[in-house]
């Protein structure tokens, strides 16, 4: 089952370094293929920290997550929460 969700980035420094690492780790641990795209750009592998950083996502940008496989809805819930949290404010 393929599911998609669009969310707005919460980290005040965007999806760089630490937030990108946390996100890519979670995507890797999800066990199913997940992609992330900035706006209507080309989707990249969400488990790739290099791909995620290279999107150049800033706070307030919209990204679209797509997951394919069993438990896709739960995976998207977890990843969406990571993206909307401001990790730099912790």
């Amino acid at each position, binding site marked *: 089952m393929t599911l998609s969700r669009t969310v707005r980035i919460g980290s005040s420094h965007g999806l760089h370094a630490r937030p990108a690492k946390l996100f890519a780790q979670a995507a890797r641990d999800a066990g199913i293929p997940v992609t992330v795209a900035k706006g209507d750009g080309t989707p990249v592998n969400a488990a790739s920290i*290099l791909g995620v950083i290279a999107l150049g996502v800033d706070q307030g940008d919209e990204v679209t997550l797509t997951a394919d496989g069993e438990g896709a809805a739960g995976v998207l819930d977890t990843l969406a929460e990571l993206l909307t949290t*401001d990790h730099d*404010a912790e």
Partner: protein
Amino acid sequence: MADPLPAPADTPSAADVDSERARAGDALAAVARELESRGARAGGAAQEVLEAQAMMAEDPSLADEVESRLAAGKTAERAVYEAFASFRDTLAEMGGYLGERAADLDDVAGRIIARLQGVAAPGVPEPGHPFVLVARDLAPADTALLDLDQVLALVTSDGGPTSHTAILAREKGIVAVVGAAGAVDLADGQTVIVDAAAGAVTVDPSADDLADAAERARAHAAAASAPPTAGALSDGTPVPLLANLGKPGDAEAARALGAEGVGLFRTEFLFLSSDEAPTVAAQRAEYERLLAGFAGTKVVVRLLDAGADKPLPFLNDSEEENPALGVRGLRALRSHENILRDQLTALAEADAATRERGEGADLWVMAPMVATVEETRYITALAREHGIRTAGVMIEIPAAALLADRLLAHTDFASIGTNDLTQYTMAADRVLGAVAGYQDPWHPAVLRLVAEVGAAGRAHGKPVGICGEAAADPLLALVLVGLGATTLSMAPAALADVRALLLTHSLDDATRVAEAALAADDATAARAAATAAASSSPTPA
């Protein structure tokens, strides 16, 4: 320290694809494990950086890039080199913060290629005796694990204030001069003196230089461990030393380091990561904690400083081409006056409540990013209407500095935010690495504006504080006092060094040192002139 390895030659592999694939896979995994284990040993911020680097080594997109090159018959070394280079170029093109991450990527690539070639990874040498480490730049993996008993100081030729090297060196308290252009010419075994306060490296020092440096190091250690005293010059002129704080809970630590009050309390923490402005009651509770933590001392609270670069949905949601020049600071508050009034109400109520309980502080309130006399009158009147007893403005815009005499006629005090004042004076975005070279508060243009504000403060008999990072640089702090600053506020960790330096100079010294800096042509010359003037006739402590 050894320079990075040269690029592996692009010659076809003599081995078959499968064995090259196995070599590459082993090296990527081994380097990832090594970075993880270094991270675990280092802990803290360094661990985060190293774990991110480990993930880069095993990145699936990178693996795809490596695989396609191996399939084309390249060696494992060359495939890894080219795959990393493709990502490196993408990051470098993005510039700024991301551009600086390109160096992290180079470090990972260098470690993998060194392992494939069977040579030692580029990194920190171990000569077996204490030494000054000189490098182009330090990888996070190296900085994190520096043996502080062996590494006396760190000098790099590359890297700016936002490089990981600078950040980690600050965190570990390493004596460091970052971005010293001449560092590449130093040879192994040369004797140097590294003076982080002056940002200077003395090569082949004389016996007198060495004795002097040893004495200064002893004095520094003594000052750092001495019980904190009130900030003052050697002639007894008081210069209250205050803390920059972002949370009420930081009060105790700041007081322990000798903060005589708070010169800048940032209220953003109450507002960030929320979808709507906090209530008066919620704000008031936090302000009461803050004021009680500094009962009996001065506490300067900055009104919410947010806008286009720190978007808050309830304050400013519009896209701006030039956020630093847009609707932020007081401008954003004024367009949502209900939020501003709520904050002033909460502050006044917290002030009254803590006084009633006998734990009140001397509350001052100031507005960020004020540009005009009209704004000064507006915010001062509004603060007084809400019962704030002392209201002032921040000087961060050259227009406000140039007309400080006019502004101070209408308000109680001024506080100079040197980071933003430098940004606006030099037309250089504070967060953009590519223009970091302009971002130097030693620039005489910035100092001249500070002098305007200082003169205006003297003329009106009103206080002029400094609450930017400039106050944390001991010699620059002396210059700022010489230009008319009456209080200095800084990160608490900087208090001891500033306190110690002020105690060795009189107000006359400060004025003379400031004049020397003002007369210079650029930031480097200003610092050099101030260094010379300060050492020519320091008064005994």
